[in-house]
């Protein structure tokens, strides 16, 4: 990548500092987690995996990690089901009150989380559903759904409506249309929506804090309570863990997109020479 164009050089001059500003605070937790010290310090004094080992040996931390993964699993499954079916159901339809329905689906993105947290807290207390990870997972599903809805809706924009009709004319019922027409087209949107849902849930602190209980303390909640009373490198380890999960998720998505692109765009070039 040679930047010969002065405009490109100018762009790099502006964008690189902005990029570093955004990335460095996130990246800094990794060396801190690998620090050879009993406290959180920076710069690190030496490299050691002691803190990482300590994290995984500590039941309190591993159960927090398990709780986070459980709530994320609930959020992803329910969020994908609700978000994708909503996007398909609303696709290409116009009816009175449709903007209101879309607004309702997107509302959890806009309503302050603390308000939702209070509402969920009161609701789950009143129905006696406390003390497990399930209410937290359900609450996470509510805030994850709009992300899946939006990514699925975006991938549906490229759907030729005649495809649905042609499948129907060829004898496909609703389930076959879903499987053979909608699914292949929304798959990229579904995957990125699921990744969004996962990271929204893994990252969510306020609602999890409101609804926490001894058996249902997620990783961010554990970090938040520990940072006040028990400042150990295990907090940095869990941060590093969250960063790696997010990075891996992002890389997977990029890989998926690249693979799809190569399988769809390279071939026509090879073929166009023959025809």
């Amino acid at each position, binding site marked *: 990548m040679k930047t010969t164009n002065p405009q490109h050089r100018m762009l790099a001059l502006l964008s690189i500092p902005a990029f570093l500003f955004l990335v460095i605070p996130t990246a800094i937790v990794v060396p801190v987690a690998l620090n050879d010290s009993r406290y959180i310090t920076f710069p690190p004094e030496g490299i050691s995996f002691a803190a990482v080992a300590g994290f995984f040996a500590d039941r309190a931390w591993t159960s927090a990690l398990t709780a986070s993964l459980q709530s994320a699993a609930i959020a992803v499954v329910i969020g994908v089901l609700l978000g994708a079916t909503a996007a398909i159901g609303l696709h290409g339809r116009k009816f009175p009150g449709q903007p209101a329905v879309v607004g309702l689906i997107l509302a959890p993105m806009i309503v302050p989380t603390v308000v939702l947290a209070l509402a969920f807290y009161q609701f789950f207390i009143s129905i006696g559903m406390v003390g497990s990870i399930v209410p937290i997972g359900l609450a996470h599903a509510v805030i994850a759904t709009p992300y899946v809805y939006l990514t699925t809706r975006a991938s549906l924009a490229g759907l*030729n409506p*005649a*495809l649905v*009709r*042609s*499948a*129907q*004319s*060829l*004898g*496909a*019922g609703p389930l*076959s249309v879903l499987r*053979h*027409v909608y699914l*292949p*087209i929304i798959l990229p949107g579904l995957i990125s929506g699921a990744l969004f849902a996962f990271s929204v849930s893994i990252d969510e602190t306020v609602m999890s804090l409101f609804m926490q209980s001894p058996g249902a303390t997620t990783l961010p909640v554990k970090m938040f309570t520990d940072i006040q009373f028990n400042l150990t490198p295990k907090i940095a380890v869990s941060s590093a863990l969250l960063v790696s999960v997010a990075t891996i998720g992002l890389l997977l998505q990029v890989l998926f997109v690249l693979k799809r692109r190569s399988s*769809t765009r390279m*071939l*026509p070039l090879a*073929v166009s020479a023959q*025809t």
Partner: protein
Amino acid sequence: MTASVISAGPIPGTGRAAQGAIELRQVSKHYGDVVAVDELDLTVQPGEFVTLLGPSGSGKTTTMMMVAGFEEHTAGAILIDGKPVDTLPPRDRNLGVVFQNYALFPHMSALENVEFALRMRKVPRAERRQRAEEALDRVGLGKMGGRKPRQLSGGQQQRVALARALVFNPAALLLDEPMAALDKRLREQMQEEIKTLQKGLGISVLFVTHDQDEAMAMSDRIVVMRDGKIVQSGPPEEVYNHPMTDWVASFLGDTNLIPGTIVERNGEEAVVDLGGLGMAKVRDRGASGENYAVSIRPEHLKFRTRATAGNGCAATLVSSTNLGATVRHRLTAGGHDLQLRELSSDSAARIRPDEELWVGWDADKAQLLVLES
């Protein structure tokens, strides 16, 4: 170049030719206050190629979509092979549909696309593969089965769409402007191929187009639509040569329309006063309305010598344009602008600008029609 790659014959795997009658009785489609299709009566006989021809907004595509079951009609009844299908969803109507942009499934190969209908009908894997391959062979794409739609040219995609619509022996074939996306030469080739295929299979076709040349070339019967109504229906030559209204005459090709008043009507012929062009004997097909005109196609108008008997008038040449095979002359006669078209080979050096011209036409080539607009 125009050799047909589509071979005719019975449908693969069945040994029988599919037939299907489509009947529409008083079918209407209303969108709120807007009437898209207005009490339409239409019958497609088994094996017949019927074209719905009209400008956009004439209701032709809506009509086809109602037959296919994608649009619900608000009144009337639709029958396929005598059975009402009004409440049947599209998947149970057993009609092969080819859409304007083919609507092939992009993630499936050509073969998988063709197989799809058989897969939906739970045909065993080996049998459906064989039938799909035969169907692709029939449209000349036997070797292209493994390709994805985007790796195929427009004409090839069109053929895959045809094979896909035919492979399950549908009662009839519905074609919605299937050639609109192809260039002229390919379009003409596909017209011939589809016609050959249709004749070979003996399958009924309901075809939608706004292209009058396409309708002329392919149809057994043309149904001209305007504003949700049928304005005229008949074999292509009849609709072209004997339009009932000025709108039909102008929609199907160029024509000279000369307003006139009827002096005498006696069965097949009428005598019409064409004002500045004098009295004329014309064909009368019983058109009735308030105002009348006579339609003479530019190719039926001829240069004559004054001595020739029959219809004719003096004319002045305005311009001549050579269009390759034909020459178009613009004339004025009796206060009317006229167009005369003749073969370039007949035209050479015959007309001199100052020459006094006389144009004439045969009585059976001039048509009395109703002036609507």
